[in-house]
Structures are given as C-alpha cells and as structure tokens.
C-alpha cells in the first residue's frame, strides 16, 4: 500500500492566515501530530510576500499596497518578494528525516520541484528545475520556491503562476531607479511566463489542483488524502497570525 499524506485545499485566505497555517503545520508535523502534508491555496486579498531577510521598506511600496488593497507579509523562508495574485500556491511540510527528502538542501529543492514539474506536465506544460529555486518553461520562470528547515522539519512553499500583471506588480514593488522602470517591466515580461500565456487560456483553480495532486503523488509515489487542519493546527494558526504575521513588529523587522 502506498504511503498516505494529507492534502489540504484552502482558498481565499489572507496573507497572514496563509503564512500562519504553514507555520502551524510545521509545528504539528514536527510533533508527529500529523502526516506529511501538501497544501494548495490562494490569497484574498492579493498580497506581496517578502523573504525573511528582505527589508520591507526597501522592497514594497506600502502606500501603493494600501491604495490597491494589497496585503503584505514577511515569510519565514528566505528568497525574494512575490506578488501573489493569479496563482496557485503550494506548500509541503515533511520531516527532515523522511527517506524521500534529500539531506542536501539544493537536492531537496529539486526533488520537491519535481512534483510541480510533473503537475505541469499533466496540463501539457514542459518545464525544468533551475537552481537555486526556480522552475522554467521555455526558458521563462513559471514557478518560484522557498524552503526552510526548522524543528527537524522541512517547509517548502512556492507559486505556480497562472497569470501575471507585471505593471501592477511593479506598482507594488520598489523600483531602485524610476528611470529604469519601463526597462525592468520589459525585462520581467521577457523572463516570466504563466500557465495562461503558455496554454492560451485560463484554467480553473480546481483543474490546477488536480494536476498538482497527481504531480506530488507521482513524484513521491504516495497517495494524497484530502483532509483538514487538526484542532491544534487551527489554534496555532490563530496564534501565529496574531503574534507574528499580522504584526508590525514581524513585518517591519528588517
């Protein structure tokens, strides 16, 4: 019998709830209270997440976020700023000691990205992993990923870009030099793609989830069983949201 992991699908949560939920799963799984877990999710409202080491004020135009009703949050993972708008976001939480997870961090990125690549293949998109943390299709980025390891547990989350509004994205991010804004926008348009752009049509969140589910099942030779957060995870999500992710202290700490 195949190993069974938990599948969570949580739509339309705030940036704070989403980041708190990942952290809650990490704590719960490190305490062996839940099996390895894959979650697919969306963001409501749209949000910018920044990497743990980034300076919020240096990266994010806070006034523009306020005007456009876009949230912002600091992640517990490193990496860069991401505008979470039209995308499917995933996270996987699994013990570091699990036999399927390489000890080497780059190799573990590659392994987990393998699930996304197989998922994209389900919707007829060819892609490949490019170190450190990207997945490219036809030479353009379609997925960015970030991983942390805490309490002997791996958390990797990442985005599968369904559609991208580069102009809006750049109105929300700080551009070091206004004179090169247009150049930056055209550069990013050259470097970033989306499911919609490649397929020539939008696909539903459900269809994308179904494809990614198969991707994870194939990559790890497991079965994903739809489940829910445990009571403890719900409490922890609430706690982390209130104590960290929604606070000025956390988000403005760098």
């Amino acid at each position, binding site marked *: 019998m195949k190993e069974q992991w938990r599948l969570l699908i949580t739509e339309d949560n705030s940036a704070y709830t989403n980041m708190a939920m990942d952290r809650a799963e990490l704590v719960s799984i490190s305490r062996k209270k839940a099996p390895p877990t894959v979650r697919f999710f969306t963001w409501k409202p749209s949000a910018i997440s920044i*990497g*743990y*080491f*980034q*300076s919020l004020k*240096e990266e994010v135009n806070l006034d523009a976020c306020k005007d456009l009703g876009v949230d912002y949050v600091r992640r*517990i*993972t*490193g*990496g*860069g*700023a991401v505008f979470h708008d039209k995308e499917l976001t995933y996270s996987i939480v699994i013990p570091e000691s699990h036999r399927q997870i390489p000890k080497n*961090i*780059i190799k573990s990125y590659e392994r987990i990205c393998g699930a996304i690549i197989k998922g994209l293949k389900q919707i007829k998109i060819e892609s490949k992993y490019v170190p*450190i*943390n990207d997945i490219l299709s036809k030479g353009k980025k379609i997925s960015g990923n*970030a*991983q*942390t*390891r*805490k309490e002997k547990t791996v958390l990797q989350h990442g985005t599968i870009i369904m559609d991208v509004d580069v102009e809006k994205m750049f109105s929300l991010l700080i551009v*070091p030099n206004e004179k090169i804004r247009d150049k930056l926008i055209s550069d990013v348009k050259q470097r970033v793609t989306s499911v919609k752009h490649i397929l020539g049509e939008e696909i539903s969140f459900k269809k994308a989830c179904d494809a990614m589910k198969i991707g994870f099942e194939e990559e790890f030779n497991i079965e994903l069983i739809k489940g829910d957060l445990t009571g403890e995870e719900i409490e922890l999500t609430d706690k982390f949201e209130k104590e960290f992710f929604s606070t000025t202290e956390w988000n403005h700490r*760098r």
Partner: protein
Amino acid sequence: MKSYSIYKVPNGKLLKIFLEYNEKNNNIESLKITGDFFAYPEESIETIEYKLKNAQLKREFLLEKINSIIKENQIKFIGLNAEGLTEGIMMCLK
C-alpha cells in the same frame, strides 16, 4: 556614518547592506544584512550582525571573522557566501 550597498553575489542573490560605521577608526557600529538569499538557520543572520558589531572594516579581517562565525554557528548559505558578504560590506566604505 551611514552607508548602503547593493551587490549581486556572483552566481548568487542580491545582497543589500545597511551599515553605520565610525569614520575615525572604521569600526562597524551597526549592520543590517538584507536580500533575497537563503540562510539556515534563518535566525543566524542576526547572530552575524551582532557579532560583527565593532569589527574593523578591513577585508581580510572581516572575511576571516565571517568565516569563523559561519563555522562556529554551523550556518549554511544559499545564494550568498562569506566572500560575497565581505564584498557587500566593504562596498559601503566609500
């Protein structure tokens, strides 16, 4: 004196350093290491910032000191390394 640098680490990520230093003796007064790199454990970046306080802004010395902090605290960088961090800090001295 307050200073700032942006440095693209070769084959790595974009490092942004915020530095305050004493112009008389070139000692670090405060340091903020930011960017889109990865470090494990993440909290170790604060350890580096703290331990480099009062360190002298001399390339060889800084590199050695950063390497010893990395070793002592078993820090693993991805998209950044001791040389890149040293370069980013030294670039603030202008």
